[in-house]
Structure formats: structure tokens, C-alpha cells
């Protein structure tokens, strides 16, 4: 079984007497109300999905990640996992060496943060170095603009797991996916990350990968996304429809990936790969414009960034794919690497074209999307 990032699967969920002690102390502590991204981060840190992180980054790790794409100890890491003091709250309420209660917006206590580090961050610097832009139209920059400018770092002790409203059965922690892979006897597992419905091109990538590994984990990101992305409910229906009809049941699983999107393109691709390694995955698909948005990143920047690290440093094998399409000349799915087709012989649709077709109730061609998926998407648009 592949080792977690840093060698040890972190577990920050406390129970027994320690949990009782923290629950007793929590009402007297200053608190931070977490937003959706932070809640998901807490839950992922708790179960080791972001190993070796044991909490929100301290200033030393933050500076190291922003400045050189590594944790202070040298391990590759590209995206700050941070907790911001809320705008309007006084940063003076939080002190290094003291504890802070982390709560959901409806007042549920999730965790205690043992504050080791408090500092004022530079939003522009973080945006330029991590997101590679400070354009205010970028959703990641907009997020940075929306939060406070003081970060709190330190280990967390999770006293209550986050209660999700949907897909409980499909939420598996790293220790559970590792158990699954072990029970199935899968020595090699490929994960596919997506925040979109799976069309034929995506299906093709996963099946090419499945030809060379033992198992496939469809691992759709179900944390917070942009308001104009396809809603999680709809996407899940698409994944389930596809899984039911087009994948070998004994070699495929569908598991929720709870992280929120950063839209960080290359930086986020590395984060996605590292977290998948923690789930026990050995191979990770990175296609065109992974985790990108708009035209902020080059088509294959998210693949190139992995070249900055020495072989084996990330520890997961990357499967890099080029744009794929239905090839009229060869009569099958293909990519520019495997097909001699001219542009006119490729069935490819832009996101805008697909949205327009679906809005008008027109089913996209089956070479582009499976009819079952098209139906789910058209029905969802009609219901809006």
C-alpha cells in the first residue's frame, strides 16, 4: 500500500477523556465561525486526507509553501491550508499559545485550534504566487478578497466530525478507501478528479487508465464550487448513471472528495494529487487545464508543474492526458497523441456550446456525451 504523504496517516479526531476535556473548555474559548472551505479542510485534516498536516498551517509552513511550494520540512505542497480571522472580528481576541473553538455557522463545535502562529498575510502576494494572478475576476482571488487578512495556524483536535447532508454512504475516509483497496486486492489504483459531469472524453481517460491499473476511484470534488458550476446533486446523478451502465462494477468505485475548489490550476493539481495519495491511490489523472478556470492557465500547466519536483517526491504516478475527442476517421475515442484526425474529424464541443444545447433541450451527440448523462443534465436545467 502506498505510504501517505510524509509517511504517516494523520488522525486528529479525539475521543474519550481528551474529548470530554476539550468539550468542557470550549464554551469559554474565543471562537471562529468556519466557512464552507474551512469546514471541509478541518474534516479532511482530521482524517489524514491532508497528511502530513495536523492543523492549519503555521506561518513557517505558509511562507515556505507560498515561497517555494514545499512545507518547511521540505515536502512538496503547493496550496496554503489556512484559517483566516473573519472580517470584522478583532484579531486581538486570538493569542498564540491559546486555544480557539472552531464552529459551523449553525453553532456546532467541530474542533479546537491550538494556536501556534498568528500573522498578517499579504493577499496580493499569496494570489500572485499560488493562483498566478491577482485579477479580481478570478474566483480564488475573490475568495481571498472576501476573508480577513490575519491567519491563525496550529494543530487541531477534532471533537465532532462535520455532518454532511448528502451522500453519506459515498463518503469514505482515507483509512476506509485504503481498507477497500486492500480488501479488493488492488495493488494499483487510479483516481479521477472532476468538478464537472463526466462526458465521453473523461470516460475515455479513466478507461485508458483502467487498462493499466487494478482499480479506478472516481473521486469527484463535492466541496464548494462556483455558483455557475454544475451543482453537486446533478453531477452525482451523472456519475451514478455512468457507473451503473458503463464501468466494470468489480473494478470501479465512486467516492466523494470533500474539498472545496480553489481554481488554482497547477498549484491545485499538485494538492489534488497529494491528497489522493493519502487516500491510498497510486496513479492520478491530470488532463487538460486541470482545476483551471477561464484562461488563467496554459492548457498543460497543471501537468508541467509536477516536473519541478524530483522523481518520487510527490509519490503518486501521474497519468498525463491530452485533449480527447470522438474521432470520425478512426471511429472511436482518441486524443491528439493517438489519432491522425484533422480538426473537422474531431467531435469536440466547448462548455458554452454544451450549455446552450442543454438549455434548449437538445441532446448533445452521443459521441460527446452518453444519453443518460444528457438526460440528467437536461432534466436538471428544466427543473431550475
Amino acid at each position, binding site marked *: 500500500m502506498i505510504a501517505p504523504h510524509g509517511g*504517516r*496517516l*494523520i*488522525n486528529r479526531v*479525539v*475521543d*474519550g*477523556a*481528551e474529548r470530554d476535556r476539550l468539550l468542557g473548555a470550549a464554551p469559554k474559548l474565543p471562537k471562529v465561525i468556519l466557512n464552507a472551505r474551512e469546514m471541509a479542510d478541518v474534516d479532511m485534516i482530521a482524517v*489524514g486526507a491532508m497528511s502530513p498536516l*495536523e492543523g492549519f498551517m503555521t506561518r*513557517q509552513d505558509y511562507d*515556505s509553501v507560498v515561497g*517555494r511550494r*514545499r*512545507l*518547511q*520540512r*521540505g515536502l512538496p505542497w503547493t496550496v496554503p491550508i489556512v484559517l483566516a480571522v473573519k472580517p470584522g472580528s478583532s484579531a486581538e481576541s486570538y*493569542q*498564540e*499559545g491559546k486555544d480557539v473553538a472552531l464552529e459551523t455557522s449553525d453553532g456546532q463545535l467541530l474542533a479546537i485550534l491550538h494556536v*501556534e*502562529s*498568528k*500573522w*498578517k498575510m499579504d493577499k496580493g502576494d499569496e494570489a500572485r504566487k499560488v493562483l498566478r494572478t491577482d485579477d479580481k475576476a478570478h474566483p480564488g482571488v475573490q475568495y481571498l478578497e472576501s476573508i480577513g487578512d490575519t491567519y491563525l495556524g496550529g*494543530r487541531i483536535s477534532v471533537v465532532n466530525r462535520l455532518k454532511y447532508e448528502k451522500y453519506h*454512504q*459515498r463518503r*469514505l475516509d482515507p*483509512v*476506509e478507501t*485504503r*481498507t*477497500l483497496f486492500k*480488501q*479488493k486486492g488492488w495493488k494499483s489504483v487510479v483516481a479521477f478528479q472532476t468538478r464537472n459531469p463526466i462526458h465521453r472524453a473523461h470516460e475515455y481517460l479513466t478507461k485508458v487508465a483502467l487498462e493499466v491499473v487494478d482499480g479506478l476511484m472516481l473521486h469527484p470534488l463535492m466541496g464548494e464550487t462556483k455558483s455557475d458550476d454544475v451543482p453537486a446533486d446533478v453531477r452525482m446523478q451523472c456519475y451514478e448513471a455512468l457507473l451503473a451502465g458503463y464501468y466494470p*462494477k468489480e473494478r470501479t*468505485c465512486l467516492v466523494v472528495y470533500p474539498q472545496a475548489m480553489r481554481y488554482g490550476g497547477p498549484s491545485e493539481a499538485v494538492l489534488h494529487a497529494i491528497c489522493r495519495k493519502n487516500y491510498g491511490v497510486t496513479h492520478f489523472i491530470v488532463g487538460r487545464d486541470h482545476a483551471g478556470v477561464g484562461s488563467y492557465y496554459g492548457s498543460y500547466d497543471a501537468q508541467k508543474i509536477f516536473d519541478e519536483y524530483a522523481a518520487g517526491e510527490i509519490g503518486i504516478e501521474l497519468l498525463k492526458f491530452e485533449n480527447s475527442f470522438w474521432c470520425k476517421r478512426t471511429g472511436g475515442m482518441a486524443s491528439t497523441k493517438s489519432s491522425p484526425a484533422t480538426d473537422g474529424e474531431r467531435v469536440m464541443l466547448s462548455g458554452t456550446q454544451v450549455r446552450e444545447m442543454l438549455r434548449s433541450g437538445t441532446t448533445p451527440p452521443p459521441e460527446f456525451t452518453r444519453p443518460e448523462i444528457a438526460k440528467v443534465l437536461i432534466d436538471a436545467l428544466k427543473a431550475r
Partner: protein
Amino acid sequence: MLESRVTVKIPRPIYRKIQLVIEHSGFSSPTDFIVFVLRDLLGEAERKSHAAAAGAPHPEEFSPHDLENVKQKLKNLGYL
């Protein structure tokens, strides 16, 4: 911003060795390195102490009871 820190004295030869170790690393000072190592050691001690108190298995392992629950969950999903 003020930090709650105290001064601890260590032998100078060790300090010099640390200076060599952290050259070209992500640690900007011997203090950063020492804090990292101590935090890691203390975290490990804390984990062992909690696990011993609760009779808990290693985080990557389940108790037999938990393992059965996970297997049942995976069976319900049709994966096992």
C-alpha cells in the same frame, strides 16, 4: 506581532550542527528547526499516550469491530 516565546539554552556544538543541517532547507533558522522537531516529538508522545489510554489501534488500522463496520459499509455500496 508578538509571539509567546521563551529562551532555551542548548550546547553550542549542537547549535552548530543544526546550522549545517538546515543549510539549503526550508528552515530559516536553528530555532525554526528545533521547534519543528520538538513539535513532532511531542505530537508523537501525545498520540502514543492517547492511544495507550484508549487502547486504540494505530490510526491506519481498525479495531476488529470498526473493521467489520467499514466492511459492511463497503458491502452496502456493492464494492465488496
